[in-house]
């Protein structure tokens, strides 16, 4: 459904992605792991054209594009088929929770207000934020903002939703509510590409785990295998490190 082929991206001469390829099937929940600076966020941003890849091809929603040369209209059309959830939520600060969700539907997809409001209601219900629909972002906690952001991302009925470290900016006690929403989306068959440090989510909700390091995909596989019997030395190191960080916790230690 989404195929990404040989993405290259340099920042100031520094290679961040060196030919990453990725295959996503409908209904896949893929977590992308990796140390910071490994290029995992850049990969998501290239897929959504927030960054322009230096080269690479992409096949998505029935169209093939050159990721470097894709024109404005192509980019716009592709973006309208995907959702994106940011680390720092990025809710529209001048709009209520409800308007955050309806904005793209009305302005970009030319839906009439009533239809947009109906979709927004079901999306906000899904993330448990309907009661707070008239609140402005600054009146909401981080976890609530991120749930509204997820509602916004799924409102356009996307074929895939990209999550860029959706819980990394949250206070620890707020992580759970966001992960719970993400798990329920996964259960409902949403195709998701999740960059995260949440090993529990990777283990429990994903059907595939990808480890990126130094701009390459080092290892990929089913979570059961990846976490229990990693094939590469790099993956073992990475999991060991995590295991040590969250003692007795969620890493690969046990």
């Amino acid at each position, binding site marked *: 459904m989404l195929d990404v082929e040989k993405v290259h991206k340099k920042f100031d001469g520094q290679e961040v992605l060196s030919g990453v390829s990725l295959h996503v099937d409908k209904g896949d929940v893929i977590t992308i792991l990796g140390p910071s600076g490994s290029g995992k966020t850049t990969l998501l941003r290239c897929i*959504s*054209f*927030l960054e322009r890849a230096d080269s690479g091809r992409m096949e998505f929603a029935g169209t093939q594009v050159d990721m470097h040369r894709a024109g*404005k209209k192509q980019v*716009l059309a592709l*973006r*309208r088929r*995907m*959702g*994106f959830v*940011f680390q*720092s939520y*990025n*809710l*529209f*600060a*001048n*709009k209520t929770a409800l308007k955050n969700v309806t*904005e*793209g539907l009305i*302005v*970009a*997809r030319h839906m009439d207000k009533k239809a947009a409001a109906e979709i927004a209601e079901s999306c906000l219900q899904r993330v448990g934020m309907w009661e707070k629909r008239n609140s*402005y972002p600054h009146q909401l906690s981080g976890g609530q903002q991120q749930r509204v*952001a997820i509602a*916004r*991302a799924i409102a*356009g009925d996307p074929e895939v939703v990209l999550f860029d470290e959706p819980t990394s900016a949250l206070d620890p006690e707020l992580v759970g509510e966001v992960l719970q929403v993400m798990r329920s989306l996964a259960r409902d068959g949403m195709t998701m590409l999740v960059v995260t440090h949440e090993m529990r989510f990777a283990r429990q909700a994903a059907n595939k785990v990808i480890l990126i390091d130094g701009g390459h995909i080092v290892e990929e596989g089913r979570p059961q295998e990846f976490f229990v019997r990693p094939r590469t030395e790099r993956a073992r190191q990475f999991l060991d490190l995590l295991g040590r960080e969250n003692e007795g916790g969620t890493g690969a230690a046990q």
Partner: protein
Amino acid sequence: MNDRILNLLKDSFVQILLPGLEMTVPLTVISFSLGLVIALVTALVQVANVKGLKELARFYVWIFRGTPMLVQLYVVFYGLPKVGLILEAFPAAVVVFSLNTGAYASETIRAAILSVPVGQMEAGYCSGMTYMQTMRRIILPQAMRTAFPPLSNSLIGLVKDTSLASNITVTEMFLTAQRIASRTYEPFWMYLEVGFIYLIFCTALTYLQRWLEKKLERK
């Protein structure tokens, strides 16, 4: 202060206030409105990096921020007729004041746009919106809230700067006061009085600004 001066102040108050309402206020309102439109366009072509127009915008801001407004008034009113462009005093003043406001306010608006986090634009893109849609619906409303206090400052500044138009024969408040002063030989009281009337105008605007700021905050 004797009765004669008190009566003089009373009479001249109305005589000065009237051209204030008939000239200073319209001059300010028209120039400021036009200036804002110019400022918005000037800021946008720079932020959006429109080739050619961006350089033109920088050039325009450079000229109008770098030369005295009084000189600009003289060039437009006394100078341009020599090259065949004749403007009446009032329109000439409007041209100078709005271009001047435009130059300064464009920098205010540009800075305010740049102060909106990039994530807002990215979120607009990811909601399927175009650059212009996001700019109009998400970025500008936030930027305008930031720009509001400094823009209010510019407006208050402009009220006072309109007194410069007396130099090109616009009979606004200051020119009227000047005339009364030379007729009555009371420069001290007349100039104090006109200063006081400017103060009233600006005080009213300050209160208006505070009230509007509170309204904007509530969102």
